[in-house]
């Protein structure tokens, strides 16, 4: 097992995994379980951590795992730059994050998606390496679990030196302590993730990393930052795209059923509802709901609970729907 690990490690003696996720999908826990399987069950050395900031549920987060031979000392605490495996827990992140940055030329990209590896190759423009597609969302809906253990299954399958029984033991222990029923469902989810991945490999044309990893650089620097870190163009958060925070559902708007009561607008935490002023037949100005700006919608569905009619309905999000049906805010900044 250790010799198998050694044949895969980088110059520093590490085998490295990066998970790209959003808060709430359980990547942090998946990383912990994976690392514990290697370190506590298989006797490898390892480290595990996540990117931290003011992340809330729904915002992008990265989880890192390093494996090494038992006697190799782990010193670096910095994020993983050139991973062997990138596991994307949420497909929309492929649009908003540079997920494959630094991925080894013969590395593996694992994506939670219903798409095919060829589709993913086109989206990511990945030149070589292996792409694994796993419909973790579907599996988790069917098993009433979260996507993290399905992803764990697919990741475990992609790492030849990792013993799947070691991971399963950690899953049993992690969930079994409090909720034995949940442990069984998660083991089934793991097995399905392990088995149901669709894998296609593309031969490396050269040894170079296709999308180099770059250290993050601040947008504003010491010559351009206003004094004391003040923001002189506030309201500029309107340029942010929060759509990757949705984890599968969004509200669909049926205009004809709308009575323009504004109950949706009042309960929306993300100010997604766009209104216009129009005159009725007697020339009096009234507010009319024009639509939803999906760029900010995090899919909480509060608006649907508040809507007294059938004008808002929960929809399992399909590719392109939000872009096609988005009504843009017209406020400035």
């Amino acid at each position, binding site marked *: 097992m250790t010799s198998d690990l050694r044949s895969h490690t980088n110059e520093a003696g590490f085998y490295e995994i990066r998970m790209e996720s959003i808060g709430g999908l359980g990547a942090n826990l998946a990383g912990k379980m994976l690392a514990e399987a290697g370190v506590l069950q298989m006797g490898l050395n390892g*480290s595990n*951590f996540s990117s931290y900031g003011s992340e*809330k549920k*729904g915002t992008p987060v990265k989880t890192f795992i390093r494996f090494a031979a038992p006697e190799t000392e782990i010193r670096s605490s910095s994020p993983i730059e050139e991973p062997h495996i990138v596991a994307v827990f949420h497909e929309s992140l492929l649009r908003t994050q540079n997920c494959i940055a630094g991925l080894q030329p013969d590395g593996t990209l694992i994506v939670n998606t219903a798409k095919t590896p060829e589709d993913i190759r086109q989206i990511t423009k990945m030149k070589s390496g292996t792409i694994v597609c796993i419909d973790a969302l579907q599996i988790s809906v069917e098993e009433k679990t979260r996507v993290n253990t399905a992803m764990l299954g697919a990741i475990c399958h992609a790492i030849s030196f990792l013993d799947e029984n070691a991971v399963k033991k950690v899953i049993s222990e992690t969930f079994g302590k409090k909720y034995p029923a949940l442990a069984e469902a998660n083991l089934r989810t793991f097995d399905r993730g392990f088995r149901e991945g669709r894998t296609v490999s593309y031969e490396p044309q050269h040894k170079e990393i296709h999308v180099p990893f770059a250290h993050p650089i601040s947008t504003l620097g010491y010559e*351009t930052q206003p004094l004391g870190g003040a923001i002189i163009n506030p309201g*500029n958060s309107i340029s942010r795209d*929060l759509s990757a925070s949705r984890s599968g559902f969004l509200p669909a708007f049926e205009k004809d059923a709308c009575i323009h009561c504004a109950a949706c607008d009042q309960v929306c935490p*993300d100010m997604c509802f766009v209104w216009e002023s129009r005159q009725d037949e007697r020339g009096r100005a009234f507010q009319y709901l024009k639509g939803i700006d999906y760029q900010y919608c995090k899919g*909480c569905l509060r608006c649907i609970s508040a809507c007294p009619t059938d004008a808002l309905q929960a929809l399992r999000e399909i590719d392109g729907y939000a872009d096609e049906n988005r009504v843009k805010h017209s406020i400035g900044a």
Partner: protein
Amino acid sequence: MALQEEDVRTRNRSAQRRVDQTTDFRSGNEMAAKAAAQIDYHVMGYFPITPSTEIAEYLDEMKANGEHHIVMIPADGEHGSAGICYGAAAAGGRVFNATSAQGFLYMLEEMPVQSGTRFPMVLNLVTRAVSGPLDIRGDHSDLYYGLNIGWPILLAKDPQAVYDLNLIALRLAEHAEVRLPVIVASDGFFTSHQKRRVQYFTQNADVQAFVGDMPKPPIDALDLEHVVTIGPYMNDPDLINTRYMQSEAMYRAEAVFQTIASEFAQMSGRYYDVVNKYSMDDAEVVVVLLNSAADTAKDTVDHLRAKGIKAGVLTPVLLRPFPKRAIQEALKNAKIVLVGERADAYGGHGANITHEIKSALQEIHANATVLTRIYGLGGRDFYPDDADHFFELCLDALAGKAVRQFDYYGVNPGDPNLAPAERTQSLPKNQTTGFIEVAKDPASGQLKVKAPPLRALTAKANRMAPGHGACPGCGIFPGINTFLKGIEGDVVVLYQTGCAMVTTTGYPFSSHRVTYIHNLFQNGAATLSGIVEMFFERKRRGEIKVHDDVTFLMVTGDGGMDIGMGSAIGTALRDHKMIILEYDNEGYMNTGSQLSYSTPLGHMTSTSGVGKYEHGKTFQHKDTPQIMAATNIPYVFTGVETYPQDLIKKAAKAQWYATHEGMAYGKILISCPLNWKAADDAGHEIVGAAVNSCFFPLYEVEHGITTITYNPEDKNKRIPVSDWLATMGKTKHLLKPENHELLHQFEEEVERRWQRLKAKHENPYL
């Protein structure tokens, strides 16, 4: 692995006293908590702050499972936590605490009191950048404030060292030659949150054997047979003698540390010298770094050594007392020394460690050139490339090239094309004014509010733009935005630290379309009162031309009203023309759902866990509106988004009072789906249920006269408290038979406060 450590391991393989150890995979914070639990301290006084918060959380979880007996006291702020710890230490028991950044600075005035009066304890400082602007990630700017407070400081570079040094720290603190409180400092996030392979003593008894029974304190506030005066009034010529004793004790701590560390090595196989040397024997170019970054640089040393370059890394384990002799010995043959400092001493031509190393070298007339690079501020990662760069600078200097003696590393001038092209203009008056009317009825003196339906109010501009980073379904924004629908005209807002602040102003973005200022939550109310008084004074002097008065609004969480209660009460007593709006989500959600004083009895948070030995929060919720009403400000109210017209009218009244008379305060209950363990779309109904259960009555206190503005009993809407509790995962356990008594206590308190409120409603003199 350093040669020295390896030697000791080999030496100790046959040692008699080696104890059983368990290999595990844990973070620095987990290991600090593990050590504390195994020591079984008497008392921990604490206040949550990222990234040290987890230590109290892990200890709470372990306590719920019966793994230790530490009395965990949730303070009202770090100043309070330090006070609790000081009192507990003076009272003769073992005391533990953990903090970071602002928390450390807030307790700073207490630190010299504790060391100066010589009461041992152990504080874990999980290092983080000092504000402002607020940054939660790791650097050493907080640690540097601790250099002059008279506490020995141990540096733990990884989770293993966090555990080991926590055991050593207590022995050091309590040693008769020392008797000083001790800090164990580890890097926020890099160490605190990174899981590594670690070992701990399997048996608590072995930990107990190592730390021993607590030595009898020479001064003990609870030695009831011998009375004592602790902390007299002492001027010259006496204080200098007290300080001299303290100084001597601090220097003695170095040898004492070495003795304890040797004994620890016998038991554990892990040895800690006062400095950690890596390839230092013949090193010509040396990089000095504190804590985790030093480990990263060791990999670079391996590469350089392979190329025949005599490179080394030096990192202190003991920072106070500064291990001068060991540093002199390690650097006596070095030619270039680069000190990487994760904090600056502004204007000092190099920060503290640079100067301490320079002065150590000057004493032995060493020839080394000492360079300084300020790096990694605000938690900027330290990659292997960065370590390479530091050594390249050393090699350049060695080759005689010009290298700046002092500089920042890792700064970025910025791309002019990305700089903001224009400044944001204020919202047009017609989008914020003309929607709400407030008039004083001349006959009754009552304020009458006319507010249109929600539909018409959609034409009123939101004071916030979309694009904030809060969780899906966050109740803060429906709460604040509904309130702001009732506020006309120009607004200046101050947000105290909390979720609403962090999610709306992540640099370089801001969601605020009105002028916004942040200050730390001990002090927001005072800060806004300063803005208010400056407004009126500049207006009086004709320096500001405004047609109408501006409305000044402070927004705070319930956490901010705990730590900032003193400031809020002071501001209320001065009765400035401003509004305080508290959004109460029943916990410190921004730091990961610790209990606040507003968390109700029995509710589960990450510091009021549920297990065999714990059943959620142990004391009743704070009645902040009643506290604020007791300051006799003109207007106090409560509200929820579920009753929008009620909330909008109260906002309009609050604005009237804050522009005509003085201060208004309001509390809105808002949902936190994540930490209430409820569905993302359930918040609107949950806070409505809180109102209808009479847990959170809607009322106002206007010039001291209480009016219930919505009475669920009159509307036949009243529900049992348990119906509201059933809507949230955090309260599910309260509905189980074994918690019947706890639920009953909570229901009784809700009923008592409701009946009292009704009595006040009936009687204008109550």
